């Protein structure tokens, strides 16, 4: 393993950073054609209803209204908008437009008009008659409810997943190793607890947007704020029953995704309007629509049991979960399995482990992919219960973890048993610096198990808490990324990647990886990404895959590129390619090889720059473009790890919890760009802190969303947070690009349990339902008095 890097493990300014700060046109809505029809959606005002009649006559009379489209006008093809690979592990239960509406905000009709004001006015003029049905809002009641969210016969799944729509079950899952009940009954100490987590909104600051037009070849072009152009193209082809060759999907810059833009939304309706009218169209969500009609995190009820012997050796874990997928089943199964597969292996020495439960439909805003993706919920239950167990044992919670946590050269049967919806892969852990993370974290936060709580004046108490976490790096054997490198005149390279930079800086770090492998400066790599016409395939930005999967693909592309270069130079000079080496600047004859002296004019080398001109301008019949492609799909998904420690202050009078200091020591393998890795972790931490303390999607009793704006749904401001201190462990995963693992999701996982554990240390009460709002905290403190 080489750690003498010149490009990776180095800071590099985000390549698009300055342009974005200066406000150059970059995002979908900045770039939409000026003459595009403005598309608006008529959305359901009811949680559950059957549409009896849609009267659009008044709207159609309005000058400037181009069309109003309803379920009568569109193909009826059941799809999933999940934006996953193929076959999709989510139920196909959504139609472009349907006679049923299943949550407030569901699509009823599509309006297109010449401008925003006309489109808005037209929406107002459309009269929809509903037969209002009784909504199912409580996931606990799903199986026994008289309401069936998906009564339509067409909904189906591409492989068995326990889909039982008549009982409102989107999927079920169960796994079991050993005899959990027996092992638990023999444990000296056990914890049994129910935890609940809420729906969280992604709240990326750029609202979802898409535009569509026919190009000169009369092909449909979609530009959208999507995290996965290739899946989007495939799904659009499916709905519109159109060959994929007729569709191009690309994304410009994206103003944050966090999983919220993995699902396809507006692309469907822009394409509908353009294919119906032949005209360009654009559609941009209002913030209210983003909240109500995009996706949220799965709400879960987690019943956990765990047990140990007297010494604190963990013996068994049982985690039974009920998950609420809302009105449609996007990511229902896979978020669920990740809840177990990306939390339970942390403690791999148990004798028995069981995980399972159901994912049910309700008439709520659909749940979908969101950073943390099940792991965050599983982690909350597991890491809270671990601290409860430590308390029962009278043991330092950090030491209890130390005793039981996974380490290098170990494995867990869970890796083999649990995959994304199906079976997993066997995996030996080749990099795991949890011990370092734990030690360093304790030091940074000044962890003293005897003094986790301290009084400060004015009815305020400070306390510390901690949690560990793991995540994955892509979906093994399913996620595939690829890259193409092409030599340009003047000796620089084009890097074409299907990977999707959603604001993370992946274009920047992927250029660093290409540069490192080629031995050139990353300034000599020009990146173009995620365009189905122009870049090679990539599944897109999700599942913490980009650094690991696409990064590895780039290494292969760069290795192939070096070979192609050596061969071309060898051919030019009539020497053996084996005798040529490339040092990033020049191609030269290896010292001592038989080809010495065979280059032109007795020289030993040619610069890349000179050679690039030769191959493109000076070689007559031998001129050629030099390009190479590499693809990668992982056999394993090496987990990044984190030890998170926090210090909080609780106001015993008001119940307000403040995070004063959060320490996150991270093992993400080699951080390709330490600055960008750090901000990924910091951003994750803050979203995790927001979820822990206040973020909550709140509905009225009839199912309407009350938290549909930034006043009701507060995301943390810079005044709401204390210090975030992120450090990286020296770590190197041999399967990763230059030792790297993923870093995009791991940051969000620990705050839920770490802060809950600190709150327990502060107050002596264990709150088991998130978020930890002042009202709940206060009530808990009061109930103790």
């Amino acid at each position: 393993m080489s750690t003498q890097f010149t490009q990776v493990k180095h800071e590099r300014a985000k390549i698009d950073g300055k342009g974005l700060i200066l406000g150059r046109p970059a995002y979908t809505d900045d770039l939409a054609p000026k003459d595009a029809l403005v598309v608006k959606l008529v959305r359901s005002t009811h949680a559950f209803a059957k549409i009896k009649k849609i009267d659009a006559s008044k709207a159609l009379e309005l000058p400037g209204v181009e069309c109003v489209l309803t379920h009568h006008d569109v193909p009826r093809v059941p799809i999933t908008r999940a934006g996953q690979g193929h076959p999709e592990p989510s139920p196909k239960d959504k139609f472009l437009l349907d006679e049923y509406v299943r949550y407030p905000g569901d699509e009823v009709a599509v309006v297109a008009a010449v401008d925003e004001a006309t489109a808005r006015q037209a929406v107002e003029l459309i009269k929809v008659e509903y037969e209002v049905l009784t909504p199912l809002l409580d996931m606990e009641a799903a199986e026994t409810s008289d309401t069936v969210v998906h009564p339509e016969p067409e909904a189906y799944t591409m492989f068995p997943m326990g889909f039982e729509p008549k009982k409102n079950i989107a999927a079920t899952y169960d796994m079991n190793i050993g005899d959990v009940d027996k092992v638990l009954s023999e444990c000296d100490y056990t914890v049994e607890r129910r935890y609940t987590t809420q729906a969280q909104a992604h709240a990326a600051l750029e609202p979802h947007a898409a535009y569509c037009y026919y190009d000169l070849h009369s092909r449909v072009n979609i530009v959208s704020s999507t995290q996965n152009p290739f899946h989007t193209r495939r799904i659009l082809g499916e709905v519109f029953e159109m060959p994929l060759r007729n569709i191009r999907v690309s994304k410009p810059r994206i103003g944050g995704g966090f999983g919220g833009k993995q699902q396809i939304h507006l692309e469907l309706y822009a394409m509908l309007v353009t294919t119906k009218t032949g005209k360009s169209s654009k559609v941009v969500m209002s913030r209210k629509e983003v909240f109500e009609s995009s996706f949220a995190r799965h709400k879960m009820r987690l019943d956990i049991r765990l047990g140990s012997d007297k010494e604190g050796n963990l013996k068994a874990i049982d985690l039974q979960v009920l998950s609420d997928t809302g009105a449609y089943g996007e990511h229902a199964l896979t978020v669920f399995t990740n809840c177990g597969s990306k939390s339970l292996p942390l403690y791999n020495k148990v004798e028995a482990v069981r995980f399972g439960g159901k994912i049910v439909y309700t008439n709520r805003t659909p749940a979908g992919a969101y950073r943390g993706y099940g792991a965050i919920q599983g982690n909350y239950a597991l890491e809270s219960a671990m601290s409860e167990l430590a308390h029962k044992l009278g043991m330092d919670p950090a030491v209890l973890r130390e005793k039981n946590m996974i380490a290098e050269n170990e494995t867990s049967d869970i890796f083999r048993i649990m995959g994304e919806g199906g079976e997993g892969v066997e995996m030996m852990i080749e990099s795991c610096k949890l011990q370092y993370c734990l030690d360093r974290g304790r030091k940074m936060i000044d962890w003293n198990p005897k003094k986790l709580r301290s009084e400060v004046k004015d009815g305020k108490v400070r306390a510390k808490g901690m949690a560990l976490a793991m995540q994955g790096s892509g979906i093994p054997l399913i996620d595939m990324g690829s890259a193409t490198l092409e030599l340009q005149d003047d000796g620089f390279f084009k890097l074409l990647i299907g990977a999707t930079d959603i604001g993370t800086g992946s274009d920047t770090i992927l250029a660093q990886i290409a540069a490192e492998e080629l031995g050139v400066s990353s300034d000599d790599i020009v990146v173009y990404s995620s365009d189905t016409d122009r870049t090679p395939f990539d599944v897109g930005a999700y599942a913490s895959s980009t650094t690991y999967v696409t990064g590895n693909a780039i290494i292969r592309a760069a290795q192939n590129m070096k070979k192609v270069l050596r061969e071309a130079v060898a051919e030019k000079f009539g020497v053996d390619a084996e005798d040529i080496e490339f040092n990033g600047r020049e191609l030269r004859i290896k010292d001592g090889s038989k080809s010495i002296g065979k280059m032109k004019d007795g020289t030993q080398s040619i610069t890349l720059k000179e050679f690039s001109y030769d191959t493109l301008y000076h070689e007559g019949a031998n001129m050629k473009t030099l390009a190479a492609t590499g693809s990668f799909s992982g056999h394993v998904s090496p987990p990044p790890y984190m030890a998170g420690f926090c210090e909080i202050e609780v106001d015993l009078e008001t119940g307000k919890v403040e995070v004063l200091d959060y320490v996150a020591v991270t093992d993400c393998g080699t951080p390709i760009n330490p600055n960008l890795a750090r901000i990924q972790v910091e951003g994750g931490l803050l979203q995790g802190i927001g979820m822990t303390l206040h973020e909550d999607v709140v509905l009225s009793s009839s199912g309407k969303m009350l938290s549909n704006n930034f006043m009701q749904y507060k995301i943390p401001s810079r005044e709401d947070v204390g210090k975030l201190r992120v450090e990286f462990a020296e770590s190197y995963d041999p399967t990763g690009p230059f030792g790297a693992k993923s870093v995009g999701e791991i940051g969000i996982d620990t705050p839920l349990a770490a802060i809950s554990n600190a709150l327990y240390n502060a107050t002596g009460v264990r709150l088991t339902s998130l978020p930890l709002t002042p009202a709940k905290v206060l009530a808990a403190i009061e109930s103790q008095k």
Partner: protein
Amino acid sequence: MTIELKINGRPRRLEIEPGDMLVDVLRNAGYVEVKKGCDTGSCGVCTVLMNEAPILSCSTLAVKADGQEIITVKGIEKEATEFADFLTAEGADQCGFCAPGFALTVHSLIKENPSPNEEEIRHYLAGNLCRCSGYEGQLRAITKFVEAKK
């Protein structure tokens, strides 16, 4: 109706409806550096300067800008470019959607208070939300930028 105003130093006449919000009018007129993230004046990405003071253009009627001077991030390009160097050097930038509004607010912070402390920075910029970063890098960048400007 028509409004006459100065945008980034250049006189403009714009056709508007009485209820139009400034953010929409500016974006439609091609000033897409002004972003729109909400409709409730809650996120700060639509920040522009009106007569040198930061305002939220999503909650300002366009008529109010009649006869006024509006500055977008393009109007402070030199300073924003300098600031961008600090921000990118700290790795404090992610999706960038909050960045133009943020850069303008930083500009007026420093104008009003050339040596703000950490608390003053956090307070002045509290209305400029960022969902990607943890604000830490932004704070470091501002602190260093302030130092460099002295």
